[in-house]
């Protein structure tokens, strides 16, 4: 069951990666493309065990590294630790409402963007505070909306399924 769940989530990450690189990379808001891959990694990591979350993150990073990475492995590590930290920090059993998940997603994306900017400046790449702010807001807000909608949809599906099941039980 766990393996099936993990496979489902990995497939989800792959679909999100395809959408990101083929559709969302073409959208520009203040020169920044929205990033649904980070948001998907965060959302799926929250509902996963520590190892599964790290695996999901690592897989998202692997895809990014293989198709676009300069130095193989950097994105794998970043996404893997993102998944790991989100899974550690957020209790999957607690009631994570869509709004809370949106906030978690925003904070995680903002932190990741700051880490990336720090790493870039450490390696001597030019960085701009304005672009970092735009990146945090565009990717953060978009990620928050994605997480909000995902959790909202999941809750609705779960409610409907519960209703259908209770209806079946009543009929029996």
């Amino acid at each position: 069951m766990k393996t099936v769940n993990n496979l489902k989530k990995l497939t989800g990450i792959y679909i999100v990666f395809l959408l990101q690189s083929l559709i969302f990379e073409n959208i520009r808001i203040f020169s920044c493309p929205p990033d649904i891959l980070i948001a998907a990694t965060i959302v799926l990591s929250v509902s996963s065990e520590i190892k599964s979350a790290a695996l999901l993150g690592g897989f998202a990073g692997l895809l990014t590294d293989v198709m676009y990475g300069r130095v193989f492995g950097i994105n794998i590590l970043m996404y893997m630790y993102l998944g790991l930290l989100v899974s550690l920090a957020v209790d999957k059993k607690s009631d994570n409402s869509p709004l809370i998940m949106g906030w978690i997603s925003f904070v995680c994306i903002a932190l990741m963007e700051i880490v990336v900017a720090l790493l870039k400046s450490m390696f001597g790449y030019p960085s701009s505070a304005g672009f970092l702010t735009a990146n945090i807001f565009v990717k953060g807000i978009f990620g928050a909306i994605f997480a909000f909608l995902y959790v909202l949809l999941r809750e609705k599906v779960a409610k409907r399924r519960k209703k259908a099941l209770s209806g079946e039980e009543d009929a029996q």
Partner: protein
Amino acid sequence: MKKLGKKHIIIFACITALILAVSIVSFKTGNNAVSNIIGTVISPVQSGTAAVVRGTKNFAVNIFSSGKNARENEKLKAEIASLNDQLRMVEGYKTENEKLRSMLQLAESRSDFESTAANVIGRSIDELHSTITIDKGTRHNIKKNAVVYTADGLVGRVSEAGYNFSKVQTIFDAESAVSAICLRSGDMGIVEGSSLSTGGICTMNYIDKSAKTVVGDMVETSAAGGIFPQGILIGKITQIKEDNRALTLSAVVETSVNPNNLDKVLVITDVIAK
């Protein structure tokens, strides 16, 4: 907050060390074997998805562009609507056909090198790096540093060639440098991608202070760097200014290629010696 067990810490430390080791090896040797193997497996799926996305995009563009005409036609004759749908599809094929034909003509017009056409199957553009992924690789005779261009102008060079995919570092990348020449004045310079240049703007640096370059001059590749062949259009100069130390001039170049609109490119596979 959950706690990480000792066993988990050891596992993650080992994985991190392993990935870092692979990173260092691939960075130092430039050999991305792991990346190539995985890329070879996943690029056909991405290529197929890109084709579906491209087809949908073309169809949508055609619907939006002919929306006004369609509304007028609906008012006049309802039965023409179905014919319009067919027309839109034909127009989509026509546009694509024209694009391919112009690329073919361009490839044939350059007798000094052989080119192969490729589809863009992914892109990753941020404030510093601009990379696109194409659906052809070493299997199609594409090598590292192969030059990528379109009918509009220069796109970049292949930074990594996998078996059936390649990563292309575009001219907008902060690490890209292309030896360039002004068509009218013959002044030389280096066209570099710059921070925040994602919108089709590059900078031509190291132009001699006595240069006669003016705003509006066209810029193309010069063969000076050894990678890019001479005569591929880069763009148009829109602004000229002195550099920070006032030793040379630098110009803002509006590129003829927009990195966000690329879907088909040509890759130079062989340069024919004259």
